[in-house]
């Protein structure tokens, strides 16, 4: 950790100003009480306070190593006291040594020293306490500021991911292309255009209603998928063929809303968008001893190199949402061949309570 005083120019200034004030204070005190020459009093005051100022800066380093233990136990307390004792001792002997070297005996420094030694010890202990307090105040202020900025960062991240979610829900490519197709239909087939507008609206409403963790039935999810694929089918016509093979008993199974949407989006994106020929998309679901096995299959144009590599976040998110909703009994599997891609979801059969 960086030194809380030395790391900032303004703090260094304040630090030494404070010691200057203390030095003047002590000098005046001795000057009035002991009636010594002012110069001697000032010299003594500044020598002792500059020395303490230096010691006070240095004491940070042992204190910081104590602090990193981050526990205020007996050992730490003992260490504080030992360091404090050492500092006060060094300060007093240091001051005496320097002053002794500077002043000749005749100025009566020894007398002053003997008179003030008790005061000096008390002042040393007090100053040491104040220094420790200062360090702690600065440290906690710094920590508070750090915490606040981390909080702000976190909030920004959450907001961004919410925005991203919204954007994927809206899927601009799909939306604008669909609107373009509808625009085309208004010329060639107006009743169909109206039908498509209704379908697009229903689909958008379903995807935007998204309290995403709200469970829906498989039946609802499939209805939504059909809306989506119907809309894609106006764009791609006979290029896109969709079929379903769902066991009736699966229809009431609960799943998080929009769980399947990424699978159909992937199937159209990697299948239909990338192919010049016909692509088949097929959904099947079977009930198997308390579990639903649901698969979304699509054919692919053989040997296609996609223009963009998928990031894989779509499927990862599906797996994550399944885990949140069903716990670890659920899993997602992918089967890939040269000509097809299948995503298989396996999850426990949950049903809405009838009451």
């Amino acid at each position: 950790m960086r030194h809380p005083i030395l790391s900032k120019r303004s703090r260094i200034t304040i630090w030494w100003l404070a010691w200057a004030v203390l030095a003047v204070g002590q000098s005046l005190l001795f000057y009035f009480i002991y009636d010594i020459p002012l110069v001697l009093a000032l010299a003594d005051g500044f020598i002792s306070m500059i020395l303490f100022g230096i010691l006070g800066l240095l004491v940070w380093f042992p204190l910081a190593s104590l602090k990193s233990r981050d526990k205020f136990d007996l050992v730490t307390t003992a260490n504080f006291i030992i360091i404090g004792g050492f500092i006060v001792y060094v300060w007093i002997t240091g001051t005496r040594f320097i002053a002794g070297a500077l002043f000749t005996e005749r100025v009566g420094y020894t007398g002053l020293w003997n008179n003030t030694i008790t005061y000096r010890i008390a002042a040393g202990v007090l100053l040491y306490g104040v220094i420790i307090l200062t360090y702690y105040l600065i440290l906690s202020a710094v920590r508070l500021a750090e915490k606040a900025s981390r909080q702000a960062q976190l909030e920004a991240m959450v907001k961004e991911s919410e925005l991203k979610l919204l954007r994927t829900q809206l899927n601009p490519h799909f939306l604008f292309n669909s609107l373009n197709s509808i625009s085309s239909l208004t010329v060639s087939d107006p009743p169909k255009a109206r039908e498509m507008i209704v379908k697009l609206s229903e689909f958008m409403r379903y995807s935007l209603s998204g309290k995403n963790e709200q469970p829906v039935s498989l039946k609802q999810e499939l209805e939504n998928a059909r809306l989506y694929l119907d809309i894609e089918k106006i764009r791609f016509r006979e290029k896109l063929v969709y079929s379903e093979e769902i066991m009736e008993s699966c229809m009431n199974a609960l799943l998080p809303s929009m769980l399947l949407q990424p699978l159909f989006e992937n199937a159209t994106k990697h299948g239909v968008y990338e192919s010049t020929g016909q692509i088949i998309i097929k959904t099947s679901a079977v009930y198997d001893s308390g579990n639903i096995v649901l698969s979304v299959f699509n054919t692919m144009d053989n040997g296609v190199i996609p223009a963009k590599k998928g990031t894989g976040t779509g499927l990862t998110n599906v797996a994550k949402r399944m885990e949140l909703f069903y716990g670890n009994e659920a899993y997602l599997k992918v089967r890939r061949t040269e000509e097809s891609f299948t995503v298989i979801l396996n999850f426990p059969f949950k049903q809405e309570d009838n009451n």
Partner: protein
Amino acid sequence: MEKIKTIIIEDEAPARELLRHMLKDRDDITIISECADGFCGLKEIKENKPDLIFLDIQMPKISGFELIEVLDERPEVIFTTAFDQYAIKAFELNAIDYLLKPFSKNRLDEALNKALDRISRKEPKANPIDALIAHRPEEEGPVTRIVIRKGSGIKIIPLANISYIGAEDDYVMIYYNEGKALKQQTMKYYEDNLPSSTFLRVHRSYIVNLEKITRLEPYSKDNYVAVLISGEKIPVSRTGYKTLREKLNF
């Protein structure tokens, strides 16, 4: 006045129909052909030499940008796309125009007038499109394939088949498993857009596929060559050698 020959290249039938409908009352424009993919587009452009093409960017097999890259003689191009955050970029780069679907008749006319203006003045037109290609707006992630011209057709090379890329004046030469092909692109572009996990610029004039390197040999003092599986030797600069060592962990 002679009519402007136009080709529509767009994979979605309704979008083609709509465009055709919108162009119906323009008697200065004649649609000579329509294509649902880039291969057809390439063939039609070569055979019929249109003055203007409407080109979708997102299409199966090859994108609109990739198609433009392999053309010798480029007609005027109006891009059409549904959503592209780089559309503004394309405008800055002075592409003849960039229509966001769905677009209005007015917007289309505006684009057509710009194109007509350019065609009637017979301005050289290569530059704006080149600039656009160099920035390749539609792709965010790394490149996954390189499209080259092969005979009268085109060939899509997956990155795994590319052994290295060498600088050739204003072009680059792509060396792949079946030969080599010249491409109008910059080294900088490939350095920035090939996946950095497998492709490394080891020299001012060479980008190499790390998976094709078998060993490094000293060449002269302070100089190395990378020996590829094919036996070819690629010079490696001193900084290239340093990054290569980091990448290959030795």
